[in-house]
């Protein structure tokens, strides 16, 4: 399969502090990737560069045709429509109820409300949250919010899902529910990138590991 993400000698900075030293890696389209590293190693930062919220300092990075070094506003919007991001802090819209939150990516692509609502209900079902559809984010537990965020990240059939610690707050049952959702999406050809402290036990499908250690990204087979 073709390369979806290509990073050559990229560095990531916050002002003068270098978080990632020159590193190279690639992700093939259809890959299931675990991005590992200890807390503060730069997993979230790398994911932020992938959805063009933070620019790389040097080197080159591409997602498909998109050159992340010189991406403009309209290209950024276009790229993001093809991504599904699960943020470490969920980022649900607090004044919207859960079902509307899950509908968001569909509404942005212009799908009409009633269809979007129907699909959102299906996805809430998949994460076992349909009974909370009309609740607001603050009425949900952390794990429930996380599952809502995952439903939102998968509903629009993105090319790649970027999930930042999607199972860290979940119990075993919910965690396996969510992992199954990612595996199912991956089987449909969606590339999955999951940032996590560690790789879950008894994870039995083929995956690729990107590991960040002491500021460098290593590609482990």
């Amino acid at each position: 399969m073709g390369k979806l993400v290509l990073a050559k000698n990229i560095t990531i900075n916050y002002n003068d502090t270098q978080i990632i030293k020159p590193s190279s890696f690639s992700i093939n389209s259809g890959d299931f990737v675990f991005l590992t590293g200890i807390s503060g190693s730069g997993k979230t930062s790398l994911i932020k560069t992938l959805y063009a919220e933070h620019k790389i300092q040097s080197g080159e990075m591409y997602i498909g045709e998109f050159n992340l070094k010189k991406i403009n506003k309209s290209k950024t919007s276009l790229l993001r429509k093809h991504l599904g991001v699960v943020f470490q802090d969920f980022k649900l819209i607090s004044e919207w109820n859960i079902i509307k939150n899950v509908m968001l990516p569909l509404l942005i692509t212009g799908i009409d409300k009633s269809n979007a609502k129907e699909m959102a209900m299906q996805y809430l079902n998949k994460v076992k949250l349909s009974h909370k559809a009309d609740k607001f984010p603050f009425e949900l537990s952390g794990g429930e919010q996380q599952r809502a965020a995952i439903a939102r990240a998968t509903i629009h059939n993105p090319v790649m899902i970027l999930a930042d610690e999607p199972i860290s707050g979940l119990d075993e049952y919910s965690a396996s529910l969510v992992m199954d959702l990612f595996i199912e999406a991956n089987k449909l050809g969606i590339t999955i990138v999951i940032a996590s402290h560690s790789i879950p036990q008894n994870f039995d499908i083929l995956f690729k590991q990107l590991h960040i250690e002491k500021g460098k990204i290593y590609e482990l087979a």
Partner: protein
Amino acid sequence: MNSLKSHLTLVLSLIAILLSIFLFRIFSQVMHLYQKNIVNNYSIVIVSTKPITSLNISEISSINPININSEIKKLKEKYKNIDFSNLKIPFFYKLKLKNFPSPNKLQEIQKQLKNYDFIKKVMTKSSSQTKIYNLLILLKTTTKIFMFLIAILGFLLIIKQLEVWKLLHYERMYIMELFGAPVWFKGASLFKIAFLDSIISLILTMCLIFLITHSALFNNIINELNINFQLNYFNEIILLLITSFLISFISSVIVVIGKK
């Protein structure tokens, strides 16, 4: 509660701005009509030894001869023993001015008229109208300043409201942006609020305008001034509509496009 408060701020500011624009226009219009009115009624009478068709004074808009034949006829009947045919009867003229003269201007015109040696006498009207006129000028200036200040205050309030809106809507718009939402999508709800608020303000302002223009006080003043004042409601509504939409639309665009 919070959203009601934010509606209220925008609506009140818009009403203040719209109403001051309207009152400003009404006032200018009334003043203009009144000015025209008193200029029309104001005249200087001169007595000349020879016929005049034009005078080289820029202030003068027209020179109209005063027909004194009937007066002379009356005189002739009264004083039958006087031979009027030998009498040299002077020419009387009524001069109209282009603008209502200030006292200084009037003096100047009088002086200019007296410089012509064939003009024997210049008669001007009493100064009571001048006093009213000066009072009106003063009123006009202060009202304009006052309206201007109210409009400025309205704008400041709107700017303040924008900051509140930014805080209120920033998070949601940011999350939408993370999913690739275009500007119109991010701003949709703000645009809706702004649209609604401008409609509400417009309606309320129109109600106030209706109350003002139909009040006894307003109509008494118009009658006192003896002017033919007619309000073109349609034009006023269109003007206020455009103003209201523009202000609220620009405000919401500033919030949507601006950074936190």
